[in-house]
C-alpha cells in the first residue's frame, strides 16, 4: 500500500515537472523578449518606433519606424482571411454535411497533406510559379508583392480553417437538423440556418486560428513578398513584421541598435499574437459555457 502511494507520488512529480517545462519556456521567452525589446524602444521613442514610416537601420541617418511592417502584417493577414475563410468554410460545410464518404475521405486526406507541407515549400513554389504568374497576368514589372503573400497565406491557413470548422459542425446535435428537416426545410436551408448558426463559435475560433497562423508566418512570406520596407500596396514589394525580424537578424551585429530594434519588432509581433490568443480563448470559453 505504502509502496503504491510512493509510486503514485513519483509519477505525479514527473508529470508536474513535464508540465512546468512548457510553462517555463513560455515564461522564459516572454521575459527575454520584454527585456531585449524594451531598450531599443526607449532609445527610439515609442511613438517614433510604432508610427515612423521609414525603416533604414544602416543608412547614414538610421531610421527605425515600423509602421509599414505593422500595416503590411495587418493587411496581409486580413487579405488572407478574406480569401481563405470563404473557401475553407464552404469546404467544411460540404465535407461534413453533403459529401459522400469516399469523396470526404479523399478531400480530407488532401487537406491533411496541405497542413503538413513545410512553409519553405510554399515559399519556393510561390516564388517560382505565383510570382511569375502575377507578373504576367497583371502586367507589372515584378510579381513579388503583397498580393503574392496574401495568396500564399490564404492557402496556408485553409487546413486550419477547414479542420476546426468540420469539428465544430460535427458537434452540432443531429436532433437539431432532424427537427429542421421534419419541419419541411430543404437540406441546404438546414445547413445554413440551423447547423452553421449552432456551430458559429467553433467556426469563429477556426478563423482566429487562421489569423494567428497567417500573422506568424515568416519563411513563405519572405520568399514571395519582396521584403522592401514600403507602405503596403497590393502590387508593391512589402515587408511583414515577421520577415523584418528574420531578414536582418543574420547580419545585425550583437548589441547594436539594429539588433535591439529587431527584438522590439518581435515584441510587437508577440503582443499581436497574445491578442489573437486572448480572442481565441474568449470564443472557446463562450463555446463551452453554451
Amino acid at each position, binding site marked *: 500500500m505504502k509502496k503504491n502511494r510512493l509510486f503514485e507520488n513519483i509519477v505525479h512529480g514527473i508529470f508536474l515537472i513535464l508540465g512546468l517545462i512548457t510553462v517555463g519556456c513560455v515564461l522564459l521567452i516572454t521575459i527575454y523578449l520584454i527585456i531585449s525589446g524594451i531598450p531599443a524602444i526607449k532609445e527610439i521613442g515609442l511613438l517614433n518606433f510604432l508610427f515612423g514610416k521609414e525603416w533604414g537601420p544602416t543608412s547614414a541617418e538610421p531610421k527605425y519606424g515600423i509602421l509599414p511592417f505593422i500595416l503590411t502584417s495587418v493587411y496581409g493577414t486580413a487579405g488572407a482571411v478574406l480569401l481563405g475563410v470563404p473557401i475553407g468554410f464552404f469546404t467544411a460545410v460540404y465535407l461534413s454535411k453533403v459529401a459522400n464518404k469516399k469523396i470526404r475521405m479523399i478531400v480530407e486526406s488532401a487537406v491533411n497533406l496541405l497542413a503538413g507541407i513545410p512553409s519553405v515549400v510554399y515559399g519556393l513554389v510561390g516564388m517560382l510559379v505565383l510570382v511569375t504568374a502575377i507578373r504576367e497576368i497583371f502586367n507589372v*514589372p*515584378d510579381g513579388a508583392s503583397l498580393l503574392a503573400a496574401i495568396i500564399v497565406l490564404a492557402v496556408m491557413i485553409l487546413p486550419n480553417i477547414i479542420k476546426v470548422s468540420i469539428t465544430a459542425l460535427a458537434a452540432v446535435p443531429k436532433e437539431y437538423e432532424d427537427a429542421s428537416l421534419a419541419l419541411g426545410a430543404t437540406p441546404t436551408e438546414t445547413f445554413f440556418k440551423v447547423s452553421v448558426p449552432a456551430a458559429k463559435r467553433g467556426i469563429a475560433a477556426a478563423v482566429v486560428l487562421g489569423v494567428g497562423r497567417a500573422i506568424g508566418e515568416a519563411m513563405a512570406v519572405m520568399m514571395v513578398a519582396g521584403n522592401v520596407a514600403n507602405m503596403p500596396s497590393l502590387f508593391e514589394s512589402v515587408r511583414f513584421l515577421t520577415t523584418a525580424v528574420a531578414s536582418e537578424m543574420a547580419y545585425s551585429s550583437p548589441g547594436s541598435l539594429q539588433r535591439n530594434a529587431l527584438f522590439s519588432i518581435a515584441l510587437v509581433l508577440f503582443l499581436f499574437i497574445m491578442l489573437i490568443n486572448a480572442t481565441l480563448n474568449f470564443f472557446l470559453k463562450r463555446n463551452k459555457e453554451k
Partner: protein
Amino acid sequence: MKKNVNLLALAVLLVSVLAACGSNKETVATDGSTSMNKVIGALGEAFENKVGIAVTYNATGSGAGIQAVQEGRCDIGLASRNLKDKEKEKGLEGTILAYDGIAIIVNPNNPVSDLDVETITKIYSGEIKNWKDLSGNDAEIVLVGREAGSGTRDGFESITNTKDKCKYRQELTSSGDVITTVASNPNAIGYASLASVKNIVKVLKVNGVAPSEESIKNGVYAIQRPFVLVTKKNATISKSAKQFLDYITSEAANEIISGAGVVPVN
C-alpha cells in the same frame, strides 16, 4: 546547505577565472569589417581546428577595426578597403588577404551585356528606369538586391556609390534567392558575389571587362574591393597572432578563402 552553495559559487568563479586567463593567452582577436564575417569565420575555424587557438571576431566596420588595431585593442584589424595615406602615416600597414568581386547579373534573355559603373549607379539610384534607355527591351528595370547589413550589399553600394540611394524592388536574404529571382524575371538586374553565380543568369561585363579571378586580381574589373588585414608596423604582435597571419596568407588557406566566396591573393 548554505556552505555548499558558497563552495559551489567559489568553484564556478575559480573555473571561470582560469578559463579567462587561458583564453587571454591563447586567442587571436580580430576586429573590423562586417563584410569579412564569412571569410574570417571560415579561416578562424580552420585555424582553431589545426592549431587549437581560438580566433575571435568583432564585427564593427572597417573604420572601427582600423582604430581598434591602432589603439591596440585587437591583434588584427579587418578592413574591406585599402588603407588611406593618413592611416598609413599613423604606422599601420595593410596586407591584402583577398579580393571581393561582385558580379552584376541579368536574365539570360536580356540583350544588354555591358554596362559601365556610372550607368549601374544611375540604374540603382532610379535615374534610369527602363531597359530601352540602355538599348534593351522596352520594360521597366526591376532592381533586386540584398537586405540591409549584408556584406555583398555593403560592398556593391560602396563601390557604385549608391549608399542609401538604392530603389530596390526586392531585398532578398541570400545570393541564391537573388540569382533565382533574376533568372525568373526577364527585366531584373541583381548582384551577387562572383563565386556564387550560376549559369542560369547572365553575368554582365563592367566597363567592357567580364569578372573572373584574373580580372578581379589585377584590378581591371571595377566592382571589386580588397579585404585588408591591418597590423601595426614595427610593433611586436603576439605569437599566436603571427601564427594566424602566416596561416591565412599561406597557400594552404586559399581553398578556404575561395570557399567563402572571395578571390585569394596568392
